[in-house]
């Protein structure tokens, strides 16, 4: 605590419009005391923890040099023109509700239908939720420690978080249409801290889609935290389309808690960023719980996608199924470090982990570290990792039908990635993901 206070005294120049990120920590007196306490603790912890080094096992193969934070600033308030431009591009799909943030500021809000609100559904910007729904936020806010390497960045997030949402779905409520959240980076060198807390009550059902985007090309830093709390028998589907500018450095720390007979499905689509780190931990806490962890990555130029996962089976009779696929072109690099951990007494576990890398160029590099730690009996566990290239026969088949090589390649990659998207079992969402992937192909392969 004392460390935090000492630092606070140092930071006095609030007048600067875009202070450097690491000098911008301030005690915000507009927030409740308990939350400020959280933020101070986060800042102190951030200062205390060392920067990751490649020698740390959780950062093996990672380009840790990308994580220098000196160049980033806290963006200033957005002007009306930019807001309008951003809103223009945050096209609403058919959704149950929508929040649009840019540079960590709320710029648009489509509220949830009255019928849902009356049944107790809460969908609010996190800054309001910590005041109006203190009890819920307090119970769950960053309650899951970041154990896969990014504790320092989770602490930074805790210190700076101001955007993002709380979604609370009470017992038995099913929300048909997806809920959408946009996070924009609108200012070059800006830093944002998207937060998402989903608390799904017993037997509830909800689908959430997040979009991470940049308004223009240019560097930036995104440091997000997601907590998905899936109550008994609940069903949560979560999709994130990460499409930051290709100069952005992004660290995302996700945790999912799945209770008895509940089911969580998450799909992370990696398209943008220079370096995108995704840490994803699923805790299977009750019998009959199930977690599907999905990701696709389309990496090219010098992009690096770095995924670390943990499938933590803490109760008997649980299932997890992970499928991560990357296509790599030019000098792209991907790293997958995953672990299935079956705790003692978590008997009758089914756990699967599959990683597939498709290398399209001689300079691309794929690192895979699929791990297993089994401390229980009567488990069915398997993992597989492959790295290969497009099958000559398949390419020939398409070429023989007059399809140009570039198009044929694209079709084969899309087909390769589609196996993951299909697992969403939601036609509209699948279509949306496919379009986002195709858009990336369209802008890079001209």
């Amino acid at each position: 605590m004392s460390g935090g206070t000492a630092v606070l005294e140092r930071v006095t120049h609030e007048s600067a419009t875009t202070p450097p990120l690491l000098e911008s920590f301030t005690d915000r007196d507009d927030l409740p005391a308990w939350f400020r306490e959280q933020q101070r603790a986060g800042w102190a912890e951030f200062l205390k923890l060392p920067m990751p080094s490649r020698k740390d096992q959780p950062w093996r193969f990672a380009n840790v040099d990308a994580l220098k934070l000196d160049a980033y600033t806290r963006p200033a308030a957005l002007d009306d023109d930019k807001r309008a431009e951003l809103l223009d591009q945050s096209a609403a799909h058919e959704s149950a509700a929508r929040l649009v943030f840019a540079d960590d500021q709320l710029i648009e809000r489509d509220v949830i239908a009255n019928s849902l609100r009356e049944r107790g559904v809460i969908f609010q910007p996190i800054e309001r939720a910590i005041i109006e729904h203190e009890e819920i936020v307090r119970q769950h806010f960053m309650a899951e420690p970041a154990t896969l390497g990014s504790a320092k960045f989770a602490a930074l997030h805790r210190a700076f978080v101001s955007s993002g949402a709380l979604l609370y779905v009470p017992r038995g409520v099913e929300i048909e249409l997806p809920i959408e959240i946009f996070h924009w980076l609108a200012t070059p060198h800006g830093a944002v801290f998207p937060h998402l807390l989903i608390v799904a009550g017993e037997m509830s059902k909800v689908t959430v889609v997040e979009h991470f985007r940049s308004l223009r090309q240019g560097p930036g830093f995104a440091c997000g935290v997601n907590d998905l709390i899936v109550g008994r028998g609940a069903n949560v589907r979560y999709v994130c389309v990460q499409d930051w500018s290709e100069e952005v450095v992004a660290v995302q720390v996700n945790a999912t808690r799945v209770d008895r007979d509940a089911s969580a499905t998450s799909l992370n689509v990696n398209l943008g960023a220079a370096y995108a780190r995704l840490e994803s931990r699923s805790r299977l806490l009750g019998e009959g719980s199930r977690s599907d962890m999905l990701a696709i990555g389309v990496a090219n130029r010098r992009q690096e996608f770095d995924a670390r996962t943990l499938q933590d089976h803490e109760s008997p009779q649980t299932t997890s199924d992970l499928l991560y696929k990357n296509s790599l072109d030019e000098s792209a690099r991907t790293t997958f470090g995953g672990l299935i951990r079956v705790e003692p007494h978590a008997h009758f576990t089914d756990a699967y982990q599959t990683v597939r890398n498709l290398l399209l160029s001689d300079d691309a590099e794929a690192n895979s570290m699929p791990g297993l730690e089994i401390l229980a009996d009567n488990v069915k566990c398997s993992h597989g990792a492959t790295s290969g290239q497009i099958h000559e026969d398949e390419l020939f088949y398409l070429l023989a039908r007059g399809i140009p090589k570039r198009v044929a390649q694209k079709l084969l990659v899309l087909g390769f990635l589609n196996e993951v998207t299909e697992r969403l079992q939601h036609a509209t969402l699948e279509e949306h993901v496919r379009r986002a992937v195709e858009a990336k192909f369209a802008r890079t392969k001209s």
Partner: protein
Amino acid sequence: MATTTEQSAVDFDRNIGDFHYDVKYDFDAGVGLNERVVNYISDVKGEDDWVRAFRLKALRTFEEKAMPTHWASDDLRAIEFDKIRYYLAHGQRPTRSWEDVPEDMKRTFERLGIPEQERKFLAGVEAQFDSEAVYSNIKKAVGEQGVIFVGSTEGLKQHPEIFRKWFGKVIPTGDNKFSALNSAVFSGGSFIYVPPGVKVKHPLQAYFRINAENFGQFERTLIIVDEGAELTYMEGCTAPKFNTATLHSAVVELVALKGAKIQYITVQNWSANVFNLVTKRGLAHEEAEIKWIDCNIGSRLTMKYPGVVLKGRKARGEVLSIALANNGQHQDTGAKMIHAADETTSNIISKSISIGTGRATYRGLVHVPKHLKNCKNNTECDALLINATSRTDTYPAITVRGTGNSVQHEASVSQVSAEQIFYMQQRGLSEAQAMSLSVNGFVNDLVRQFPMEYSVELKRLIELEMEGSVG
């Protein structure tokens, strides 16, 4: 005087090596590790200055390197380096005849059945007792083909021109903390050279025996198989079970020149107080083939990842690994395949069985760098868990760059199904017999690839391990 622990008929084989003799050692470097100890070893062996300098430099590297506990088992911290004796020997020269081996040592190897096996099917035998080989002999016909098979000390003295060229080239001193330790205090192990075109029909065997308490064995093996030649090498090892920890830390370097084939077979059956921390790697030149067959049954903690550097076009590397972890044991084993030329292929098949509180870990590394064409790796790891308290882990790391290569890794974990056991029990087998049959079925396709003598022995060992694991 022989000291034997009580043995029941059932676990006799498990403890086949559990006896020791009070031997008077003429050479003893004392307890603890420092420059004096290293100099003592060098003096006793009458080594050249470059070897002494190599050892002293390695000692500094060992001291500088941290324990790899950031990824490896914390059990490593239990090793007390200052309580270990680093060199114990009776004499400096191995004899060529069992008649000349000192009585206690001869009795030891007779009990282990070495001279008998030599007569039956081996082309040559080296028997190491603590720090030095006491017996080393090669069949006349094989010697006449120009095959050299001596201890590392003799190899250094008699064949410095071949030895020095490859020594420490496959596994540099600083590869890891324990390769540095070995480089500082190495003694014993084999030096083998097979001339071009010579195909050694029968296996050469080395047997490593630890007899003394609080002892560390650091054998150093260097095998060079020249162009188009072939060799099978087998090693076995046992130690009595003491209450204190014993350390075994070998370095084994293999060089297969163009078109050569090396098959290296280990059946590790150390007693359950031995830390077995071994670095093994082969360098395969063009069209050469190196195959490690690695069976780990004994020891308290084994950390061993035999590797092949595929340096020449069309080189082939293979690791077949079987690990059996029983109560209190941790078998941390695996393989490394470094592809460094086009059209190289590697294959890793690992099967582990965890019994009681045993823990089996597969740790692997496959590296395919840039601009290589048509490299292939296949890795399969299967783990079998016998009891609810058993544990298994898999930690592979795979790097692939570029197109034109294919790498696949698969692992599975399973247990003997209750239905299988029930089925066999219905047909009159006891539960233990049924379990043993299932486990043998699990490893069978791998064991079948082993030389006959070893597959029979291994099957028997597994059967014995399975006794008492159920019910």
